[in-house]
C-alpha cells in the first residue's frame, strides 16, 4: 500500500530581519516529525511567501520574525491569502512577540503564536492538532 501523503508546510521569514536560527530550527523539528517543509530563506516579502505557499500547495505557513514588525507583516500575509482565495491555508507564527500582541494576531487569523522557549514537542503537537482540526472542520 502506498504511503499516505503528508501535508506540506512552509516556513518563511517575512520582512528584513535576518535572524533565522529559530525558523531553521522549527523547520528541522517539523522535518524530524515527518513533514515536508518548504523553507523560503530570509528577507521575503509577504507576496513572495504567499505565492510560494500557493505553488507549493502547503497546508500551513509558519512565519518567524524577530524585528517587531509582526503585526504589519503577518497581517499582510493573511490579507494576501484571502485575496487569493487561499484562506484555508493555516498561518502560525513565532519570534520576539510581546504577549499583549498575541490576542490581536489571533483575531487577525493567526492560528498559533510561539514565543521563544516554546518546546519543540509543543510546536509540533500544536501544528498537528491544528491540521487535524482544519480537516475535520
Amino acid at each position, binding site marked *: 500500500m502506498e504511503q*499516505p501523503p503528508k501535508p506540506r508546510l512552509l516556513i518563511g521569514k517575512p520582512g528584513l530581519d535576518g535572524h533565522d536560527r529559530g525558523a531553521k530550527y522549527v*523547520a528541522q523539528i517539523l522535518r524530524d516529525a*515527518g513533514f515536508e*517543509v518548504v523553507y523560503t530563506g530570509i528577507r521575503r516579502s509577504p*507576496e513572495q511567501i504567499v505565492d*510560494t505557499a500557493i505553488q*507549493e*500547495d502547503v497546508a500551513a505557513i509558519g512565519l518567524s520574525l524577530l524585528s517587531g514588525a509582526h503585526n504589519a507583516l503577518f497581517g499582510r500575509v493573511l490579507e494576501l491569502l484571502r485575496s487569493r482565495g487561499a484562506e484555508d491555508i493555516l498561518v502560525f507564527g513565532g519570534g520576539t512577540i510581546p504577549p499583549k500582541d498575541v490576542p490581536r494576531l489571533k483575531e487577525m487569523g493567526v492560528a498559533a503564536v510561539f514565543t521563544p522557549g516554546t518546546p519543540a514537542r509543543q510546536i509540533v503537537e500544536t501544528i498537528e492538532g491544528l491540521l487535524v482540526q482544519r480537516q475535520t472542520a
Partner: protein
Amino acid sequence: MSVAQRVAVSWHSVTVMERNLDELVSEARSAGPRSQRAAARLMSVMTDQPHRLAELLAGSRDWPQPRLVLGVTGAPGSGKSTLTDHLVAELRTRHPHSKIGIVAVDPSSPFTGGALLGDRVRMMRHATDPQVFIRSLASRGHLGGLALGAKGVVRVMGLIGCDVVVIETVGVGQSEVEIAQNADLVVVVLAPGQGDSIQLLKAGLMEAGDVFVVNKSDKPDALQLQRELATMLERSRIARLDLAHPSAVPLACHGPQLVGPEGPIDMQRDRPPPAVRTVWDDDTPQVFFCSAANHEGIKELAAALEQMTHSHAAQWQARRRRQAAAEIRHAVLEEVQRRVTAALQQNGNEELIEGILAGEISLDQLADHLMRESVSRSQTSPLSVDAS
C-alpha cells in the same frame, strides 16, 4: 504510526474526496485567479497518488506539452540551484511571454520521511513572477514515487502552458537515471574542488549528460576539472564508437588505460540501459564554462540549449514517444498489480497461500483466478485500461 502519518491519514482522505479532478483540470487551464492554486493541487494529486496519473493521462491527450524539458543534475554543492535560477532568468529575457516551470527535488529523510525543501531559497526572485511556477518535491525514497510524481508535475506544468520546464535533481543516487528518462536534455553541473563531481561522472552521470557545465569557473581548479572531464568524455566517445563499429577504431587509439580486450567491455557493462541516452552517440557533448554567481556563461549556455532544441527535434519526438509508451506500460502494470493485490486480499490472502503450500492449487491456477477476479472488478472501477 508516526504523528505526522496520523495527520497525513486524515489529510489524505480529504484530498481524495475533495478534489474533483476534472474541475481542477479545467480550473488550472483557465487563466483565472484560481488557476495557480488548482495547478498546485493537481500537482499534489500527481505526487501523492501517482497511480492516478493513468486516470489523468486517459483524459489528457489534448493537454499541451512543454516544448522543452530540461534536466539539471550534479553533485550537491555544484551550484545547480543557482545555475537554474540564472538560466531561468535568461530564458525569461529571451522569451518574455513564455511560461517556465521549475521542479526542484530535495532528499527525504530515510528515517522520518520528512524533508527540508530549500532549493527555492536561491530562486526567490522568481517567486512573484506570474510567468514562473516553481514546485519543490521531496524524493520520498526515489524508487517509484519520484519518477512518476515528477513526471506528473511536469504534465501539469504543460497543462498550464509552460514552454520550458527545468527539473533540478537531488544530485545523488538514482535520480540521474530518472532524470534521463524524464528530460529532453540533461545538463550536468560540475564544480571544481569537489571530488564528488568526478565520482558521480564515474557512477553514471557521464552517460546521462547532453551538456556539461563547469560551474564556478572563476575558481582556480576549474581548468583541471575541465581537463579531467574532456578526458573522460573522449574515452567514453571512443568506447561508444568502438561498440557501434568494432572495426572502425583501432584498439591502439584507446590509450594505455584501455589497452586490452576488456576495456570496451567494461565500458559497456558500466553503461546504463541503452534506452536512456541516445543523443550524442556520434559526437562529444559540449562543455560550457559558467560562473552562475558572477552571471558568466549563462547566455551562451541558454543559446546552445535553444540550438539543440532545434537540431535534436526529430530525436526527441521519437524519444518522447518511447517515454510515453514506457509510461503507459508502467501505469498499466501498476494498475494490474493494484487490482490483483486487491483481489488477493478479497479472496483471503492466507487461505490461498495455504492452498498452494498444501499443493491443492498451483501458482498458475491462482494467478488465472485472480486475474479473472480483477477483470470482473474493473467494471465497477472508474478507470478503463482499454480506453488508453
